[in-house]
């Protein structure tokens, strides 16, 4: 199977973030970056499919020069080659714009399967994969935990709300967005990193920026995080107060 995995480099999960001077994005200098979490699961799924059925895994990413180490990490984990869409204005494109960039790079490859992570750790829109399917005219499924290849195409396990699941059958080629937690991730090994040095990394220029339909105007800190609420009173009182909070404030009951 020829599988393309679209990955994104995002700021490290618990990096301390400051808003930049313009107020439109975070200050990137001094930040550490890492592979987006659900993309790591997408890559894992692709590698497992390759191990089972043979073929090729290609990682595809759009971003500035700093995405290099993340691409190497993906190659170290077992991807065969990589395509880097060199793009410095990713933030100025909306989800449709980004998907268009990716679609351009995917079309000449004619893969059997395209995997993306469910959503990115920074913007968290969860749309790129679905739009990509639309642009390529391919069937898709999202929130996928497990992929099996069948004679007719694919059978996948999809996560639904509240502990329910569903299986979906679809033909290839197709696009799937992969949810975190479906498999056990492999760790990057020294051997993998050394081998990655000889794998192909092909850089392409990004298409011209077109006017986005959705604009992120500014970012701001949310209201201060609520500190721990210590409830006081008699056991009966605190019990009632807690249940009230859990039901209406936290909305978990």
């Amino acid at each position: 199977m020829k599988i393309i995995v679209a990955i994104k480099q995002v700021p490290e999960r618990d990096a301390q973030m400051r808003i930049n001077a313009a107020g439109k994005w975070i200050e990137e200098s001094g930040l550490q970056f890492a592979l987006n979490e659900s993309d790591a699961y997408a890559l894992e799924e692709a590698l497992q499919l390759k191990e089972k059925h043979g073929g090729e895994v290609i990682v595809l990413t759009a971003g500035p020069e700093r995405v290099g180490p993340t691409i190497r990490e993906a190659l170290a984990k077992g991807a065969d080659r990589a395509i880097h869409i060199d793009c410095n204005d990713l933030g100025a494109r909306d989800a449709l714009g980004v998907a268009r960039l990716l679609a351009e790079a995917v079309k000449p490859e004619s893969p059997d399967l395209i995997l993306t992570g469910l959503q990115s750790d920074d913007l968290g829109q969860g749309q790129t994969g679905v739009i990509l399917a639309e642009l390529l005219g391919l069937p898709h499924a999202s929130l996928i935990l497990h992929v099996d290849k069948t004679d007719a195409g694919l059978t996948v396990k999809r996560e639904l709300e509240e502990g329910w699941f569903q299986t979906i059958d679809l033909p290839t080629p197709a696009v799937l967005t992969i949810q975190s937690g479906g498999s056990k991730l492999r760790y990057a090994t020294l051997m993998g990193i050394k081998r990655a040095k000889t794998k192909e990394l092909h850089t392409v220029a990004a298409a011209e920026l077109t006017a986005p339909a959705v604009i992120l105007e500014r970012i701001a800190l949310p209201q201060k995080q609520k500190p721990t609420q210590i409830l006081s009173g008699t056991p009966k009182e605190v019990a009632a107060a807690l249940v009230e909070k859990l039901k209406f404030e936290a909305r978990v009951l």
Partner: protein
Amino acid sequence: MSGIWIVIEARDGRVSRISWEAVSAGQKLAALTNQDFNAVVIGAGTEGLAAEVIAKALGKIVRIEHPRLAAYTPDGFTLALQQFIENERPAQVVFPHTYQVRDYAPKLAARFGQALIGDVTAISEGPVFTRQLMQGRLNGSYRHSGDGPCFVSVQAGAFRADAVQSGAATVTVFTPTIEAAQIRTRHSECFRGAAQTVDLASAQLIVGVGRGIRDPANIPLAQELATALGAELGASRPICDAGWLPIERQIGSSGQTIAPKLYLALGISGAIQHMVGIKGSQCIAAVNKDPDAPIFEAADYGIVGDLMEVIPALTEAVKTAKQ
């Protein structure tokens, strides 16, 4: 282009709560932009759904009906709504942000050269849509630009379902054209995960028991509370070491890692080996005798008190609330 259309989603044959919240959001948006707001229900045999919505202050209700929409598929729903939108030409389309909507709304929006503004937590003058970035650590303000409908989905709990005003709406039916070949995916019946004796990793509600419980004879008290909540019972390491609960129930770095909506920690001090196992919890509530117990730093809600008194009181309160 004008008008706001809210796409209503069903759950077990009834309008889902989050859909009511979307209606409420649509209501707010309509007030801000001085437009009508309406709703669609989509599927096969949607009379019942429409009947639920009819008593709300909506302009119109449209039932998008087609046999091929009886079960959800992204192709089917996208096609149907695309045709509807081409027909109605709304300014905004509002969805509840559900797994289902995430599966087709971006596709639908792309057909109109748009991108979905998803998981919105607030709508303000502009209209400006607020959504969370960086896993909730930052808020972003979004605006729609250019021609074409604006597609928006709203986060669960961000708008109040009970803010929807009553009224009377008219119902019409829209029948889209959907060929069999256009539906490319086949979806099975929904099913639950494989039944295991203990699956803390996917449990949504968990009650954890720590050394504060003092005696194995007191464990049934905690179990009763867990049962009342509909929660699984877990424990910190010393409890499992002592054999008071089986090792499968151990939560922590050398046991299970959990990510429930609610973790209720009873008599657990908050040692790091336990904390790394629970950090994925959405909401943590703790009961402990020691006001300095580290767990209170990580908890959203805390009760300092005697477990033997607080646990039964909690069980009572939960049972009352569930009635």
